[in-house]
């Protein structure tokens, strides 16, 4: 009886619990239906755990050198071997996950926010504003990604903050196109017309009606973009224009010393490459599964 009273007086209190429960059930159901997507999600989860708890997982600090143990093959002490300075490769891979995740997550957040603002307003308002904005997007997309990134980094100087902003701005263009076309189709619905009829302002409509309805493509784009950004960061760091040393970026570990000592110590080049591939693979698989589930038009393809 008491329970029923509580439910009657606080109907809202019960709702989130039921919602959370069904969300969990939905996640399990999705994992069963999309095993590859779940596998991708699991890889990402492991990467995130490595990134957050790097201090507890890595046996050594990423820059701790063991002068006597240079270029050692994998062993019980150094699970993945050591590099030319005697640094434990496993520890550097674990800390590398932190760099990779920080750079990719923050640049994708920058990119997605920018893309959402540009995409929704451009699609919603249309007209001359849309034509002008789309020409800027056209121009920005015409630059080969890696080349313009390298050029920006060479001009402004390498560094994690510069890299994150440059990556964010780069991915915004393509993503804004996707969000714009989603906005164009949402705009035609009668509920938008109804909102206009009751006198809702443009900004109110954009925030309350358009944004929630273009959320699915935004989430899909963000996941797939994360994979791309990890790859781009690794490529730039490999070429020496991304994350500066001594930070243990996976791309940087493959650069210079990794190539010079590769004949004597192939493990130096092997593990960072596997780490990058796994992270990108994880985000791609997860993105594919999300697309199937969230975007009914593409379901099954």
């Amino acid at each position: 009886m008491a329970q029923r009273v509580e439910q009657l007086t606080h109907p809202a209190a019960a709702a989130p619990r039921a919602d959370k429960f069904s969300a969990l059930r939905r996640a399990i159901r999705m994992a069963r239906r999309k095993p590859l997507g779940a596998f991708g999600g699991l890889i990402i989860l492991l990467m995130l755990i490595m990134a957050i708890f790097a201090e507890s997982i890595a046996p050594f600090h990423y820059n701790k050198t063991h002068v006597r143990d240079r270029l050692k093959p994998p062993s019980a002490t150094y699970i993945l071997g050591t590099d030319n300075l005697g640094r434990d490769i496993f520890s550097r891979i674990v800390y590398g996950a932190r760099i990779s995740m920080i750079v990719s997550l923050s640049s994708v957040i920058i990119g997605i926010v920018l893309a959402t603002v540009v995409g929704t307003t451009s699609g919603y308002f249309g007209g001359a504003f849309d034509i002008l904005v789309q020409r800027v997007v056209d121009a920005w997309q015409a630059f080969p990604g890696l080349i313009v990134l390298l050029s920006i980094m060479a001009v402004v100087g390498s560094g994690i903050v510069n890299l994150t902003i440059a990556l964010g701005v780069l991915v915004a263009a393509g993503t804004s196109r996707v969000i714009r076309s989603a906005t164009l189709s949402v705009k035609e619905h009668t509920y938008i017309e109804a909102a206009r009829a009751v006198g809702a302002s443009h900004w109110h409509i954009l925030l309350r009606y358009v944004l929630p309805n273009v959320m699915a493509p935004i989430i899909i784009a963000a996941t797939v973009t994360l994979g791309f950004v990890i790859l781009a960061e690794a490529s730039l760091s490999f070429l020496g224009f991304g994350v500066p040393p001594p930070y243990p970026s996976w791309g940087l570990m493959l650069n210079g010393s990794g190539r010079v000592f590769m004949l004597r110590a192939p493990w130096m080049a092997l593990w960072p490459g596997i780490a990058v591939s796994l992270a990108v693979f994880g985000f791609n698989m997860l993105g594919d599964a999300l697309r199937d589930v969230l975007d009914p038009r593409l379901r099954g393809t």
Partner: protein
Amino acid sequence: MRQYVIKRLLLVLPTLLIITLIVFALTRLIPGDVVELMFQEQGYAKDVAAMRAMLGLDRPLHLQYLSWLGEVLRGDFGTSLWTKNPVLEEILYRLPVTLELGIVAMVFAVSMAIPIGVLAAIRQDTLQDYAARSFAIGGLSIPNFWLATIAIVLPAYYFGWTPPIQFIKFADNPWGHLGQFLLPAFILGLSSGASVMRLTRAMMLEVLRQDYVRTAWSKGLQERVVVLKHALRNAIIPVITILGIQLAQVAGGTVIMESIFGLPGMGKFLFDALLQRDYPVVQGVNLLLASIIVMMNLVTDLTYAVIDPRIRYR
């Protein structure tokens, strides 16, 4: 049709103008201390003021832009700080190597991706489909610079064989010249091939469900005819669009491949220019590539209008 062509042509002009603005803005991001560094490290000029004058940084912004734009329109891309030669001349001299690499890479990508994509679609959810999809995701996930490094190291480790670092000219040894492009082009083509394959598969699956394909089947046509003539022709249009985007990606990848395999193309030139802070070259390469890609996209769009009448009347 004519109206569509005119509209499409008019849209290119503002895009090209914005591209010049972006390229111009790029070198105006140079922090002040870097200008100082350029004159100290590289010795491009005798003092900071001369260095700033050399980069054109000593005048008001709009005047800088206008005079630069005027020069570019006359085909003058400035002078390389490092080689002291005209930028455009240096780029055009190296362009054939990059084009060769890029074209061979695209040929690899398309000739692998489209047949595999079609096969994966008509055998959906079989072992072949899974194999093709795993291969594609591998191609998307594995960094090409890593594959390239491994491709150089593993044969060296096991067989003591390394790819020639010296560039072979076509005139000296035609087969050797072509051969040195195969490995970098294959690696470069993998990730583009993966995207093309996935899109081909997705589009084929969608088209194969259409009524006209069912009609073709029920007329008793051979599988080959239904798949290639009725389905693939309709599925291929979006695939052609993505080729334009892939072209930009391949262009970016040439920087890495040319640097690793020692091919003296535009990508390697750009990379060296970046290391030398040779900004006129950086500007020139960006401007040229972006303009080429805009023009390629224009050609693709116009080709579509010819292939697909629905686009013309939209």
